[in-house]
Every structure is written in structure tokens, then in C-alpha cells.
């Protein structure tokens, strides 16, 4: 108990760091993932190929390797002097976007065929069909997998702590270096993660219930 109160500012910083890393990379992943899912079902072959390559490549790469690329290669070629926070958000966002892309794509496949056919027979273009008819209906089926994707993202954000970001893993490292008992640190950090992951699953259950519709 003492450990938490003695180092409360550090714990708070770490907790907020994890929270903001998760939120920012979730937003990035959501946008990228939906765009990539759009690419993968689009009528234009090069975009389809790009989407497939993106998903296959990033899914089979360890996240730690992506972090290595983000921290040692990206500053060299694209944006020198980018803050570690932005680089970490980029790596986490790109990695998570592949899972979101696949969730959205399988969500699209659960929308009854008749819906897209009706949209087409009304003369809607591909983009209109996707944006106004299919994606809104797919949202309902995509929400449960999104919840577990974001929980996985929360846990993955711990790796950012090993790359000079302030978050919960960093706190655990700091306290371990100071020589406090590992077991207690582990329990408190675990509790902090549990708070975030339970909040996410609660939030999504709420969303799910609000969007529920008899079909």
C-alpha cells in the first residue's frame, strides 16, 4: 500500500501516459484500419493489393521490430527529431490498424447482400454504398471485436515504455531499479492496467447495448 502512495505522482504520470498513448494510437488505428478495409474491398486493383500487402506484412511483424523501425529508421528518412511519443503512436497505430481492418472487413461481410444490391440498384457508387449503407450497418458487428482489439492495444502500449515513453511499464522499471519488492510493483501495475481494460470493455458493452437493433 505504501508503495502506491509514496510514488503516487509517478503512478499517476504512468497511468495517464498509458491512457493517452492508447487513446491516440486507437484513433490513428481506427482511421487507418477503416481506410485500409475500404481499400481491400474497392474496385481498384492496386489499392486492393496495397491493402492486402499492408495487412499481411504488418500482421506478421513483431511489434518490437516495428518500434525499432519507428525509432531508428523513420527519424533518419522522414521526420528528424520526432518525439518518442509520436513515434510510439505511429508504430502502435499502424500495427493495430491491421486488426481493425480485418474486423471491419468481416463486419462488412455480415451485412446482408440485399442491402448492397438495393443501394446499387438505386444508382449509388461504390463509395456511397460503403459510406451510407454498408459501413453504418457493419458498425454493430464490428463493435465487440473492436473492444478486444483496443484491450490488446492497451497491453501492447507497454512496449512503448521500453522506448523512452512515460507509461506504466516505465514506472515498473523505475521502481524495480530503486529496489522495491517486484511482487508488489507487479500487483499495482496489474491493477492499473485492469482499470483501463475494464473501462474499455464496459464502454464498449454500453455502446453495444445502445446500438442493438432487432434484425
Amino acid at each position, binding site marked *: 500500500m505504501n508503495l502506491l502512495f509514496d510514488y503516487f505522482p509517478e503512478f499517476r504520470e504512468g497511468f495517464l501516459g498509458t491512457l493517452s498513448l492508447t487513446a491516440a494510437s486507437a484513433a490513428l488505428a481506427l482511421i487507418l484500419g477503416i481506410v485500409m478495409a475500404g481499400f481491400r474491398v474497392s474496385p481498384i486493383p492496386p489499392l486492393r493489393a496495397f491493402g492486402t500487402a499492408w495487412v499481411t506484412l504488418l500482421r506478421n511483424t513483431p511489434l518490437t521490430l516495428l518500434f525499432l523501425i519507428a525509432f531508428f529508421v523513420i527519424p533518419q528518412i522522414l521526420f528528424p527529431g520526432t518525439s518518442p511519443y509520436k513515434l510510439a503512436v505511429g508504430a502502435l497505430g499502424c500495427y493495430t490498424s491491421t486488426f481493425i481492418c480485418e474486423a471491419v472487413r468481416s463486419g462488412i461481410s455480415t451485412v446482408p447482400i440485399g442491402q*448492397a444490391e438495393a443501394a446499387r440498384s438505386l444508382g449509388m457508387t461504390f463509395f456511397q454504398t460503403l459510406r451510407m449503407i454498408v459501413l453504418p450497418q457493419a458498425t454493430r458487428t464490428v463493435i465487440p471485436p473492436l473492444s478486444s482489439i483496443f484491450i490488446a492495444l492497451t*497491453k501492447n502500449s*507497454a512496449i512503448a515504455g*521500453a522506448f523512452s515513453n512515460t507509461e506504466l511499464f516505465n514506472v515498473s522499471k523505475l521502481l524495480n531499479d530503486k529496489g522495491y519488492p517486484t511482487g508488489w510493483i507487479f500487483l499495482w501495475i496489474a491493477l492499473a492496467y485492469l482499470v483501463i481494460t475494464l473501462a474499455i470493455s464496459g464502454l464498449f458493452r454500453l455502446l453495444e447495448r445502445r446500438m442493438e437493433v432487432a434484425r
Partner: protein
Amino acid sequence: MSASVLYDAPGPKARIRNRVYSVIGTLAVLGLIAFIVVRLNDKGQFAPEMWDIFNYAGVRNDIVDGLLTTLQVFAVAAVLSLALGVVLAVGRLSDHKAVRWFATGFIELFRSIPLLITIYALWQIFLTYKNDLGFAGDGTEFWALVVGLAVYNGSVQAEVLRAGINSVPKGQREAAYALGMRKTQVMMTILIPQGVRAMLPTIISQLVVTLKDTSLGYVITYQELLYQVQQIAGNTVVNDDYPYVPLIIVGGAIYVALCMALSALATWIERRGRRAKSGIAVAPAEQPIAAGDALDVIDHSEVAGPAGTATKN
């Protein structure tokens, strides 16, 4: 629903428009790749000298050593996680309340904590009791990584297996009891084999995750592939620069090749399982995001039917 439902068969106008978009799309993708290549080239990362380092026996040996270490960690962690998975799954389905609660608590605790934090805590504990546990050399890091991976992935595999065992039709269990088999016999000879068969694609996909997560050894300075790659890149100076890009391309290619080979195996088994008519749905070969999803997998594959199977990659 296949993708083609989303748009009409293109007429003459749409065909021209699609072609224009195709050209623009191709140019955009190629332009992005070209931009990155040009920038890397400007930094001298594609200079022949940078790539010449792979001709040195030392560099090659280091990479092979790293690869072998990664495979070794993966092999031990995979075996341990599967064994732990069986024990935890059986424990969670046990008739004894205490065993059930312990297994549930264990699974839920280690599933909800980032693997990196588990590995790091284990590393610290192992370092403290290094002499009592009798670790020599980098044995501390090895066992911290292996035990961490086994504990986390074992919890996930347990949930996957439990989903598989629950998917076995009730008649199988009842028939076994009717034949006079005991609880252990029913579990070991009837339920687990059929459950494993149903979940084999998901189990292998989780092994892909295990393989990817061996790279967390980098953080605890264990000399697996990623750490070796980073060390070589950070300690070699070619043309006043570090050869990060060549080494990351080579290291990344090795990881991607290994993971894709394992994923392909999972997809192949899934396809084979679909052809067989055992009456038990085979789970899709997608990487489970969280273990809880494994429980939905079976329902989905039954509900989704032919429409769902059309989108498998």
C-alpha cells in the same frame, strides 16, 4: 459477401474511370515507395558498402545465432504453453470448486497483464534469486522470457482449448459415460482430442503470436534475433553511419517469413478441417486478438455459414 457485391460490373465509362483511378493509385503507392527509397539512398543506406557487411562471417554468424536462439525460445515456450494450456483448461472445467477458481483466477490475471510486464517482473525476480535457482550465463533472461511467454500464452491456449472442448457435441460425453468411462478417461480420450482437432487452426495462430512475442526478449537484453540485429547495427560503422536499414530489412524478412509459414500451416489445416465431415466446426485460422474471442469463434463459424467463409484470407 464477396467484394464484387459492393459495386456494379463496370460499364464503358466506369471502366475508363477505374483505369484512371488505378493509374493514380499505382502512381501514389509507387511514389510513396520511391520517396522512401530515395530518402534512404540519400542517407547512404543503399550504398554497396552497407550491404557488404553481410559478407562478413561474424555478422552472418551473429544473425544465425540470434535466429537459433529465437527458435529455441519459441520451441520451449510453445511446448510449455501448450502443456500449461491443457492443465488450465482442464482445471477450469473441473468439478472441484477450488481448482476451478484457481484456474480461472490464474488465466484472468495473466491474460489481463501486458506480457512485457510479466516478463520484466520475472526477470527481476530471477535476477534476485539467481544463485538459488542455479542460472548460469544468460539463463536468467532465457527462463524469464520462456516462463513469461508460457504463462501468458498458456492462459490464452487454455481458453482456446476450453472453447474447443465445449464445442464437442454433448452426445459424445454422454456416450462415453454410458460406456462406463471415468471422468479422466472421458476428458483425455474423448473431449480433448476432439476439442484440439476443432481448435487446431486457432492454436497454431496463437503459436504465431508466441513466435512474434519472443522479440520482447530485446527489452530484457536477451540475445535473440532482434537484439542481435540491433546490436550489429549499433556497433558497426559503415561510411560514418549505422547500417540500420539493411539489418532491419534482413531481420524483418526472417520474422515475416517464419510467421507467414506458420500462418499458412494454420490456414491449410482449417481448409482440410472444413472438408472433413465430423460434425464439429473447425475454427478459423485468424490470429485470436484476445482469448475471450475464442469462445465466439465457434458460434460465428456456425452462424456465418457460406457468407462468412468467403472472406477468409
